[in-house]
């Protein structure tokens, strides 16, 4: 755990070959895997990888290496982002580029490794290969930067995720780790750090997009000798896993960012509030903190300066509302996790009544690179008011489901049709829900709008923490709004009336509409209620929870109208609004549908057209699935 101090100092000073020793340089090459002495097998064992069966794959790999007496290292890495191709296994042979294998489930391990160790490209099992000067590439395999998923990405925050061993401080050091902290501690004042962050244009990545430098300055200006730094790792949006990936794949990046922030504002305690449902992330964090402390990168008198920082992990019970900073702070204090009115802002009176700065994981993870490369470099990417990159969790009806990092200003079209590989099954794009339950949807007319904080707000959505859910022509927008409301109803803390009761009423009304019991009066009711909830709720949760309703109403008004007037669901999603009938011209009277109907709603003689009794039909779709003659019509 303890690294040679002289080597560490040399590394964080920039690893200049002129001042280093030969042995250190060799070590650096090895850590960066610019070449390897013996084969290395990398496997993504983040939570997502494990979910796809990476643990079984790992066991198989061990067995294979043992059986074939291959002397190779196995390195467990975090997630590189392409969830749809998990488990991901890379192999780097001496003298050759690192080859990325895809969907290496346990049954494919033998085939994959056999080919690789024979020096041949395993067919159909490769994703791409890393480009490293001086190493021999694999035939017929694209380099990473040519791959449609990786190519258009700009990976700063995720730079090391899925690449390095997250349990190794040395590997992080070898990739410029803690150089930013070293620079800050040795050459800058807290005020100067705040100023550089302000110059960089970094904005909060947790949802609101508040300028980070301004937030730090506010905390810096407080006179209290006791200040706290808090990291919000309470990632709670359905379908969002950006923070988890960063912590599992590159925990030191977060710690370094937090250390810089703590130094800037004058805090000596840093809290990471993380949901207990992230056990692997917590384990990786604990290990990383211990390793950083053992090497004087955290703890007392960091790097020999007067700056000390104690890092503490606080586990939360996974309440969505605890992502709101005041609720998060109350939860940390052992109180009920519910928000309070701002002002006072946490910067004035936060944790235990002391000045506190709260940022989320991605925000802190952006910090080291700003001091490594300078604020101008950082702000050179992005749009006028949104600088740098943004990590998104891409999900839904899209081919390349996964975690991506893209420059601000990229268009939806690039994300969906290039990185995302287009809509699943070649269906038609309908909408993209961003910002999770607090956001809204973007539609076809937004495909070429550059994505940044302002444009998303203008479109009635928000950046949120970065969930992106793609919807296609088969999705019913009323049901989508209902789904999100179901979530907010569940996650409201219940403190203020509009959120506690209002969201429940919104959900009930949407449910009624989806059940075909809605009336035209329900639509203005929904609209007014949504606006009042937004206007009167205490915290961000309630102030944004009606967004999915308002935004789907704005772009898909006709769908709402169809549900309440003709009582039809244009996307055919709302079961209660569907009618199954049998086309007598096509029905052969094979009886298959009647035999499979769970409620005996289908009657008819053999070889005669059958009929569905609408009073009995529960619209389960069994007949539709079973019919071999496409005789079942759905309306």
């Amino acid at each position: 755990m303890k690294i040679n101090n002289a080597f560490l100092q040399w590394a964080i000073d920039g690893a200049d070959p002129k001042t280093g020793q030969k042995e250190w340089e060799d070590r650096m090459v090895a850590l960066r895997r610019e070449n390897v002495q013996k084969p290395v097998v990398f496997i993504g064992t983040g939570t997502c990888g494990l979910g796809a069966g990476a643990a079984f794959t790992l066991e198989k790999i061990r067995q294979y290496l043992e059986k074939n007496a291959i002397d190779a290292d196995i390195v467990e890495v975090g997630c590189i982002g392409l969830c749809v191709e998990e488990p991901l296994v890379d192999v780097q042979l001496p003298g050759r580029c690192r080859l990325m294998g895809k969907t290496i489930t346990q049954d494919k391990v033998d085939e994959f490794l056999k080919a690789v160790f024979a020096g041949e490209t395993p067919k159909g099992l490769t994703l791409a290969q890393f480009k490293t000067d001086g190493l021999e590439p694999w035939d017929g395999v694209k380099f990473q930067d040519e791959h449609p998923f990786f190519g258009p990405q700009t990976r700063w925050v995720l730079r090391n995720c899925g690449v390095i061993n997250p349990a190794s401080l040395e590997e992080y050091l070898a990739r410029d780790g803690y150089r930013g902290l070293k620079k800050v501690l040795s050459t800058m004042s807290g005020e100067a750090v705040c100023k550089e962050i302000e110059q960089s244009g970094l904005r909060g990545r947790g949802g609101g997009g508040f300028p980070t430098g301004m937030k730090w300055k506010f905390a810096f200006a407080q006179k209290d000798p006791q200040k706290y730094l808090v990291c919000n790792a309470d990632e709670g949006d359905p379908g969002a896993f950006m923070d988890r990936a960063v912590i599992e794949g590159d925990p030191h990046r977060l710690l370094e960012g937090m250390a810089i922030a703590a130094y800037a504002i004058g805090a000596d305690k840093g809290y990471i509030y993380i949901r207990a449902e992230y056990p692997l992330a917590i384990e990786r964090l604990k290990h990383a903190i211990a390793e950083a402390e053992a090497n004087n990168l955290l703890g007392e008198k960091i790097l020999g300066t007067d700056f000390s920082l104690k890092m503490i992990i606080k586990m939360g019970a996974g309440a969505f509302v605890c992502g709101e900073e005041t609720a998060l702070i109350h939860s940390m204090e052992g109180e009920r996790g519910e928000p309070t009115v701002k002002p006072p802002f946490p910067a004035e009176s936060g944790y235990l009544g002391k000045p506190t700065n709260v940022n989320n994981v991605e925000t802190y993870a952006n910090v080291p690179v700003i001091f490594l490369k300078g604020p101008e470099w950082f702000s050179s990417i992005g749009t006028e008011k949104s600088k740098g990159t943004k990590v998104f969790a891409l999900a839904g009806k899209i081919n390349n489901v996964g975690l991506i990092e893209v420059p601000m200003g990229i268009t939806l079209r690039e994300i969906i049709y290039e990185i995302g590989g287009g809509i699943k099954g070649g269906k038609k794009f309908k909408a993209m829900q961003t910002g999770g339950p607090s956001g809204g949807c973007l539609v076809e007319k937004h495909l070429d709008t550059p994505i940044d904080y302002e444009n998303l707000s203008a479109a009635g959505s928000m950046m949120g923490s970065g969930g992106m859910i793609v919807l296609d022509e088969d999705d019913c927008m009323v049901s989508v709004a209902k789904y999100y409301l179901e979530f907010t109803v569940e996650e409201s803390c219940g403190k203020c009336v509009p959120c506690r009761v209002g969201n429940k009423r919104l959900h009930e009304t949407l449910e009624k509409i989806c059940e075909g019991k809605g009336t035209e009066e329900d639509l203005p009711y929904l609209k007014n209620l949504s606006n009042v909830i937004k206007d009167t709720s205490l915290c961000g949760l309630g102030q944004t929870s009606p967004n999915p309703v308002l935004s789907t109403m704005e772009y898909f008004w006709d769908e709402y109208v169809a549900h309440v007037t003709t009582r039809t669901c244009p996307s055919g999603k709302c079961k209660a609004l569907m009618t199954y009938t049998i086309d007598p011209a096509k029905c052969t009277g094979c009886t298959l549908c009647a035999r499979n109907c769970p409620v005996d709603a289908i009657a008819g003689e053999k070889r005669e057209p059958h009929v569905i009794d609408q009073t009995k039909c529960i619209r389960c779709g069994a007949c539709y699935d079973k019919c071999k003659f496409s005789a079942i019509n759905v309306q």
Partner: protein
Amino acid sequence: MVKLTIDGASIEVKKGTTVYQAAKQMGINIPVLCYMNLHHLGIENKPAGCRICVVEIEGRRNLAPSCSTECMEGMVVKTHTVRVINARKTVMELLLSDHPKDCLICSKSGQCDLQEIAQTLGIREIHAVENAAVSTYRKDVSPALNRDMDKCIMCRRCETICNKVQTVGALNAINRGFTAVVAPAFEQDLIDSPCTFCGQCVAVCPTGALTEFDDTRNIMKAIADPTKTVIVQTAPAVRAALGEEFGMEAGTLVTGKLAAALRRIGFDKVFDTDFAADLTIMEEGTELLDRLTKYLGGDKSVKLPILTSCCPAWVNFFETYYPTMLDIPSTARSPQQMFGSVAKTYYADQLGIKREDMVVVSIMPCLAKKYECQRDEFKVNGNPDVDFSISTRELAALIKTYNIDFVSLPDEDFDAPLGESTGAAVIFGATGGVIEAAVRTAYEVFTGKSLPKIDFTELRGLEGIRQATIDFNGTPINIGIAHQLGNARKLLDGIKNGMYNFHAIEIMACPGGCVGGGGQPYHHNDIEIIRKRANAIYEEDRSKPIRVSHENKEVLQLYKEFLGEPYGDLAHELLHTHYVAREMV
């Protein structure tokens, strides 16, 4: 000072003033529901949860809760735009959509803040889907108070009182979203929680969610039963507040009308708890003198300070939170229980009836008294010394049910022999009163001299914690006084840490003592109402011909005929008690 504009008019207010307060100064009454200001304690309940008080502030994206938005220089506030009124009405409709519609039979009807504001806002219809879900909870019926959380609007006032003011910690918000509600931990019943039954939560609840356990039916039944002799005692604080229920000014003394009303209700005898208060002084005062004399004589095994034990919520509090200090409080029973004990022995003997045939009812400003009279220590073979305890509010309801025109009743006296009382007894109803009464007697007994002045004004007032030193003819006696349990906790912790050196301490659980009790006409913790009631109590004291307990002739006669010596054997058996540590989950 900051200058702002509200509804087109400008106003200058002190920095830190909220928009709600500023508007109020201008005569603009913004409706508030969850907000509660306990000025005298410097505690505010402003969770900003009800969102009824929202206003429009120029330049802000959302409406702002005026109760918790500080005035800023140049702020432009609008309190009744279409947007504001629509928001308030919509929010109120939401609240009502999740509230039982049984206003006609709700015990809070007519005194309900929710009802009042719904009327103010002119709500005539509640828009919500048919069969909209309503949050319902298990009803919790305790001996003292009922919780019907279906009517809870999550204003959190009870939580603030219970946690911040009383530091009891029985109530807190639980669950999330639509089912969020205030309840004891694990949704256990109050009786299993650390609740002291002080009833202050009831005093501040804006709806019918928290109410007293209603005992009036049992009393009607007992009165109607010809085999029962039903006697009633009424506590000092009741006479200073009951009139409010009949439209009288706070602080109107209605002692005579009270006795008349009780007689018309049909009680066989109308007695006064004040009689038992004088008795309490004889016992507690003697106990104090006993401990004091021994202590001053060098006996270090004596426990000092002595703590008063009249307040049942306070007894519950120290049994729960100070189980290691159970030997400090006086063992004297409360006046209610002394009365019951004497009534069912001495007086029942006088009447020649069995205790089972006597029903003792008490009229109390208190809800904890309901719990107290059910304690096993105060029963003989299962028969309680005091059968039923009802609050001032319940009595008012009973008077109305019995068609009695309270206001035009003549003044009547209490009956003998348990009806005579001194000025020392009546001041039991205000904070500091019990200890003042004890000092009046102890001084004369200790020094053998008569009091140079009878009013110990240094012991009075509404400060949460007060201390005074009384000169007992050259011996300084240090007295501590606390009202409201949070102050009691501070005082007790101070004693534990050696911060205080008191000989005697009086503690009352409610603001201002019993005059601010949980069973009194709803005072919503308004200290001005409480002050007026306390003044009435002291006024009655001044009007009494005898103002020291040890000169109460009926009390002296009781000792002579029945009890023997104060603090003697029979007195111990009938007038003293013991305490048990209460376990908390």
